[in-house]
């Protein structure tokens, strides 16, 4: 039981770091890294609960979500590369054509 709490605390800390980074960082790459942190903290949760509940569906879920996170990162980098070709920057402060 104590082990489960350790995992949950670690995953909550990683999730918080990720969301803090998304709010404060201005570089596109760093934001992608923070998104990965948030997704992986959820994976850690899933695996910990799977072991705790003694049932494998959490681990299966984590495998699916790892594959999805990889695809998501690929698309994110593709968008950043396309943007860099047009604008020569991926700093989010300069990406402000659309606003009201």
């Amino acid at each position, binding site marked *: 039981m104590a082990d489960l709490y350790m995992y949950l605390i670690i995953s909550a800390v990683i999730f918080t770091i990720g969301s803090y980074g998304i709010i404060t960082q201005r570089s596109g790459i760093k934001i992608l890294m923070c998104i990965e942190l948030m997704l992986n*903290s959820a994976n850690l949760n899933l695996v910990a609960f799977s072991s705790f509940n003694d049932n494998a569906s959490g681990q299966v879920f984590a495998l699916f*979500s790892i594959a999805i996170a990889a695809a998501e990162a690929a698309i994110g980098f593709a968008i950043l590369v*396309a943007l860099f070709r047009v604008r020569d920057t991926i700093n989010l402060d300069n990406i402000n054509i659309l606003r009201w």
Partner: protein
Amino acid sequence: MSYVLLAPEILLTVLALAVILIGLLVSDKSKNILGYISAAGLAASLLLTIGNRGGDTFFYNALVIDPLSQIFKIIFIAVSLLAVIASIHYFKDNRNQDEYYGLILLATVGMMVVASANDLLSLFVGFELASMSTYVLAGFEKKNPSSLEAALKYFIIGSLSSALMLFGMSLVYGVSGSTNIPEILAYFKTAQVSGIDILAMVFLVAGFGFKMALVPFHMWAPDTYEGSPTVVSSLLAAGSKKMGFVAAFRVLVLALVAVRADIQVVFAILAVITMTYGNVVAISQKSIKRMLAYSSIAQAGYISLAFVVMTQMSIAGGVLLALGHAFMKGGAFLAVAVVGYMVLSDNKNAKNTDDISNFAGLGKRAPITALSLFVFFLALAGIPPSAGFIGKFVLFYSVTSEAVSTASTWLLVIVVIAILNSALSIYYYARVIRYMYVLPPAGERIHEPLPYVVAILLAVIGTIGIGLYPEPVIKMAMDAASVLGVI
């Protein structure tokens, strides 16, 4: 278990892969035919979906076909069909058309999987399939900085919402020990409400709220709808937004029945803020795409009234308004695409083609488009006979009758706010109508391209048809709501 029920999904998946493969083999010139192939496939799967009533589960309970999934699948396929028909002209002679149609079809399959999801895993996978395809579609004009900016903003907010949703799902799994939605429901019916249930619910509401573009999770929507290619905006606003609603209907209504009272208050606040903010900000917009984006935020506010009372009739009303909104908003964005085409054919280097000044005298320049846009705007404002009126009527009536039967004043206050909001929205729609019909035209009459006309007229038929003959649709919506098993 018969795989015939899954025929629409299988057809679209095979078609998406086939379109990409054909694109590799044929020359750039002959790629224009891919649009017709995709439209035919979507039309076929629409007929297959309308034809079957469902009532079966697949793949160890991961997918379920029931009236709720069927009506949302009809919405998704119809919206994609309209977008694909219009794209036949919008992306004509584009050498990446194969990828474009492949992605639209895959996005549709993703939304359909979400509509059928009976397991948190299939829900998440469907969500991600639809989201990732639409991230790329939003940035499809890869030389256009505003399209890329729209894609980047959509991507960052979209992945953030996926992460929140996944974290919420992991907590639900941890508490209940299962990822299957009926099993989770069975668990929550007997269990005590604990702090972690509330936490999981907050994460799920936030994750779905981003997809539904409820205030305060809405900030991506106006930017993305404005920057994306207009046909893609139509797909996003009319289709992919409904994905959040069907997921919320399934998970929040069904599985978190235990913490129901708290959901009601949360959604009441979200709904009121969302509809008021959307309508108030829409008034001051110069860009019509951005105005439609805010009005679609306001519509999301009305639809989420269904979560506030959660009676069978209110959910049916939410489903009806979602169905009507798909036709009205999808059609309105396509009409804006025609205006964009018109402005660009006047002046190749025009910027901000959706500025309100370009709508001056549209009634003379493009009469079919202007008349259809007039119909869509009146329908969005909720004027009968239209799908928008039917949806709003059933929804507001259900909230009022719930308020009367439980004698709760705050529900009545919410209905009054919603009706005042509808009245407010007429102001900004009427402003565009004045531009179209009162102000003098800025140029000659143009020839409206046939694919646009077909798509827009189909949307008009959907909007008016549901308004004139609502019984079968209302019955479908009531069947869909009865699946959820609420009172």
